[in-house]
């Protein structure tokens, strides 16, 4: 392994950490405040394409270390795509099988990518008329596989597994602290399993208790894969409100518009969840006026072309002869 020459003996050596961080790139045209520079942390430059590499690796290594997987026993996981893609690719590269339980509304690109990465796919109908607080269909089906076929499956369970938090405490937090030379004042994140926000915040607050943590969530009934509105957060046992200063709610359609602006003005091919976070960060820049902001951009736009066409009027026009 040599991070200077970027020559590696295996893909796993490329996983990010303090010595091999994902890049921080400053926003220049969409926000040019010298008093409050904003940096995007490009998590899509993780080797399997998203921030979920961090949690997936930590959880998989933990299962390996404890002898929970191997032989006939692979993994099953509920996922909206990114965790599944990371887990499937990692699992297959280490010789395990993987079953991914995916809600139907996940974009086709992600479903096909899961299969390409080597996952067996269970697509389940989306919640028909969910009641607040009642279980999530994909989580329950994955749990059923793990319990009824425990000889075949271990379930990492990103929604409850503390390794998801530890991954970010061990890598994302220290990376940001080192990259900003301790100058970070605001962290901007989205909420899904909440592993990122909880782990990163814990680390940054351990270095500087004054670091503000801003979580940006889409409006209820949203269509931003991977994210959860506050009303959907009960399924995540990793959510810790004490680590968050502000929770901003942003109209989910702005996520798509902002993603397009990032692509077309900054050269950052950011996905909709990054767009949502950027919108939230801009609100705080106006409010707090001074600081150093870091936005964790979870993944890039490539998996969301169908969703972009759905939510950006006119984008699909002129694409056929």
């Amino acid at each position, binding site marked *: 392994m040599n991070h200077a020459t970027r020559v590696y003996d295996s893909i796993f050596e490329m996983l990010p950490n303090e010595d091999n961080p994902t890049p921080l790139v400053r926003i220049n045209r969409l926000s040019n405040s010298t008093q409050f520079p904003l940096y995007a942390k490009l998590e899509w430059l993780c080797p399997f394409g998203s921030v979920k590499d961090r949690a997936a690796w930590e959880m998989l290594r933990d299962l390996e270390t404890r002898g929970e997987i191997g032989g006939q026993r692979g993994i099953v996981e509920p996922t909206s795509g990114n965790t599944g893609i990371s887990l499937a690719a990692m699992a297959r590269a280490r010789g395990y099988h993987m079953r991914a339980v995916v809600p*139907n*509304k996940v974009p086709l690109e992600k479903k096909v990518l899961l299969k390409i990465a080597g996952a067996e796919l*269970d697509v*389940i*109908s*989306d*919640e*028909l*008329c*969910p*009641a*607040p*607080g*009642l*279980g999530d*269909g994909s989580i*329950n*089906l994955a*749990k*059923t*596989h793990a*319990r*009824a*076929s425990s000889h075949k499956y271990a379930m990492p369970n990103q929604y409850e597994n503390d390794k998801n938090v530890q991954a970010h405490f061990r890598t994302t937090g220290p990376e940001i602290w080192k990259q900003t030379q301790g100058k970070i004042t605001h962290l901007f994140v989205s909420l899904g399993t909440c592993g990122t926000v909880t782990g990163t915040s814990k680390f940054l607050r351990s270095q500087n208790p004054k670091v503000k943590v801003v979580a940006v969530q889409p409006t209820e009934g949203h269509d931003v894969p991977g994210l959860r509105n506050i009303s959907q957060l*009960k399924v995540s046992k990793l959510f810790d409100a004490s680590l968050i200063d502000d929770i901003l709610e942003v109209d989910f359609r702005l996520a798509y518009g902002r993603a397009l602006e990032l692509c077309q003005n900054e050269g950052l091919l950011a996905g909709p969840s990054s767009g949502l976070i950027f919108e939230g960060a801009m609100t705080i820049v106006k409010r707090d006026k001074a600081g150093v902001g870091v936005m964790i951009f979870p993944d890039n736009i490539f998996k969301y072309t169908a969703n972009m066409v759905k939510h950006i009027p006119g984008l699909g026009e002129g694409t056929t002869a």
Partner: protein
Amino acid sequence: MTNYAHPEVLVETDWVKQNLGKPGIRLLEIDVDTKAYAAGHIPGAVGLNWQTQLQDQVRRDIISQEDFEKLLGGAGISPDDTVVLYGDNHNWFAAYGFWLFKIYGHNDVRLMNGGRVKWLNENDKPLTTDQPSVEPAAYKATKPTRELRAMLPQVLEAQRKKWNLVDVRSPDEFTGKVIAPPGMTETAQRGGHIPGARSVPWSTAVNPDGTFKSPDELRSIYLGQNGIDPQQQTIAYCRIGERSSHTWFVLRYLLGLDNVRNYDGSWTEYGNVVGAPIEKGVPVSK
């Protein structure tokens, strides 16, 4: 605290566990997505598909008496058996099954409180992928009890006679903001609700773990806050009749109202009827 009007029709997961494999007690899992059953079910439970096995596959209707008899006989069930139903989606489809069992006169049918999600989340409850071995039995149903079912004429009559109409869909379906939950293929030409209906979403009846609320809470919700008059006839409806089965069960068996019908045609019938009056928007206060 008072008890449910018919406590015998509701069993807890612990009761089911204690009675696994006992003769005369049969378990049926009724799902709309049978992937759940295939992935793992309660040992001994036979799986039924709500869409293909409980509904006529040609006409829009419940299965005929003959098909019901074949289905239960094939599942090894006798008329004297205690049948415990549970299923996915918070027991909606199991409640529909309960309603169907009562239409065809099965005496002892019960719902497992909390459905498959509650069982799944209790670590002492076993799950299996093994198919149960079933000895086919002879099953004879009674003639359908029509008083449990509302057809379109009764829904129109209910509006004239000011019966209780309970719309159990989500608030957005009730107001007409959406015609159906996103992605649903069964839909209607228009959004809104039946004139005079009260909006009481199905989930109002359950606790966070999916079990039914206490008798006092249910009484307060339905008879108190929503003004359902127990002296009047009542019709519950939703989009395709499954969520309303859940509320029908609450009103008929947990609160003990005498005349409660499930309108299984629901909004996918009513919302498509040419010339039928509908209302849109927020409910007027009763």
